[in-house]
């Protein structure tokens, strides 16, 4: 079955722009990215769009479809009524470059601010041995495809540009949680308490656990429940729990 759909696509650049109307053919089984490509091929040859795998795995085609942050290649046209207008805009938390392409370098800057895995002393690379149960939890976080939809949706920076310097965003707080749960990470030996640093240096306190990151994650990672809240609890251990504080004074604890 084929029908003609009404699309509104944001066209423009950092100096301005707006939503432009298009009527475009839609075939059974297609996704929003297919339609954007058809627009490029037939009506708007200069429409800028970033994409790569068309399989929901590269994280390039992030955009907002009817106001919801989504991967265009994983948004089926069948979820819309044939007569429904489909509005496609670039991510609204980041500076736009052109049309649907935004500058996501904020995220790369934040990634660099998270101290890397610290190898344990006396164990050479290739000699790391870990039990499956000890790494299982953080394997969920490694499903991340770095689409930055969570970063885009998080109201802490989406609605407050001024919070960007202080807040790492859900994706990179999750990275800290991953390292803090890592069975071999030896950051503590170098005086880095990752959970406390998440709060002090990476803005964990800005997150008010309203779960929008979880809602939009195309990999269905339970970012809030499994990374952010556990990280908040870990920070409480370090900063606000007198029993743990006392225990740490008396004997060094290794969980």
């Amino acid at each position: 079955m084929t029908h003609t759909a009404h699309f509104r696509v944001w066209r423009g650049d950092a100096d301005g722009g707006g939503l432009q109307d298009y009527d475009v053919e839609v075939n059974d089984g297609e996704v929003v990215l297919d339609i954007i490509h058809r627009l490029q091929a037939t009506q708007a040859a200069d429409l800028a769009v970033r994409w790569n795998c068309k399989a929901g795995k590269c994280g390039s085609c992030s955009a907002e479809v009817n106001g919801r942050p989504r991967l265009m290649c994983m948004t089926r046209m069948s979820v819309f009524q044939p007569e429904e207008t489909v509005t496609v805009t670039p991510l609204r938390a980041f500076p736009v470059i052109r049309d649907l392409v935004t500058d996501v370098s904020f995220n790369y800057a934040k990634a660099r601010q998270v101290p890397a895995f610290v190898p344990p002393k006396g164990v050479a690379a290739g000699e790391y041995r870990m039990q499956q149960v000890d790494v299982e939890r953080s394997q969920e976080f490694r499903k991340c495809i770095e689409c930055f939809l969570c970063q885009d949706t998080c109201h802490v920076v989406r609605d407050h540009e001024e919070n960007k310097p202080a807040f790492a965003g859900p994706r990179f707080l999750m990275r800290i949680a991953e390292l803090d749960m890592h069975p071999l990470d030896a950051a503590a030996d170098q005086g880095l308490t990752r959970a406390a640093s998440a709060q002090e240096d990476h803005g964990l306190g800005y997150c008010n656990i309203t779960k929008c990151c979880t809602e939009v994650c195309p990999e269905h990672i339970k970012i809030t429940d499994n990374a952010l809240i556990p990280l908040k609890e870990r920070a409480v251990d370090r900063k606000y729990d007198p029993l743990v504080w006392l225990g740490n004074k008396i004997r060094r604890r290794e969980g």
Partner: protein
Amino acid sequence: MATGTTPSSDRGVFTPGRAAITARHLRTDKWWLSPLVSAIALTIFVVYATWRAFANGDYYSAPYVSPLYSPCLASNCTDMNGGADWHIFGSWWGLSPALLVLVFPLGFRLTCYYYRKAYYRGFWLSPPACAVAEPHATYSGETRFPLILQNVHRYFFYLALVVAAILTYDVVLAFRDRDGNWGHAGLGTLVFVVNIALIWAYTLSCHSCRHIIGGKLRHFSAHPVRYRLWGWVGVLNGRHMLLAWSSLVSVGLADLYVYLVASGAFDDPRFF
């Protein structure tokens, strides 16, 4: 080229450099429904619980005591025939005895990670829904006073365990009849059993509980028992929202039941 647009403010999604779109959001679904329902439901409960907590009456009808009034710690409590009426506060307390104990469950739920989400979204609109711009000019989240105090949640969890234990005791007593003889069960007993089951499930599904029981560990392999407990709590934790609502409703209904029986509006049907 497309029609030019001039955003109405220069904050948030209207920050210069971001795509110029005048709408605060472009969602076409019913994004407002869930925060609205949360806000209405929470308001109903708060109004009801406030009325009942200050009412200072109709909270005991042997063998049932309203969960809002247990334990009853002031001398002005009704005599509860072996129940949790420990008059440790003496007679200087002239207000409703419910106010002495409600702070604990109130604090537990107020700092609960799920309820936080519900009222931040429903009442504070921060954010009202995902990708819907919030109305506030600035935002500091839980980084400073007073919201940084949300970090005390785990202490309320410990207290909530005590409260749940006392309410369990009340449920056991609900298997006695009006005169204190064992082997009774009425509709009220059933209401109480369901309520306490939901309260325990809610309490144990707490994120702090999940952390304390095992989430804080780095080597599950070295703690097999805690690992298994962590898994079980995790299953409950996945339903924390459901349990938060259902236990809230069941507490309200258990209290309402006691009120109806105590005020004589209704006679407790007896099973045996």
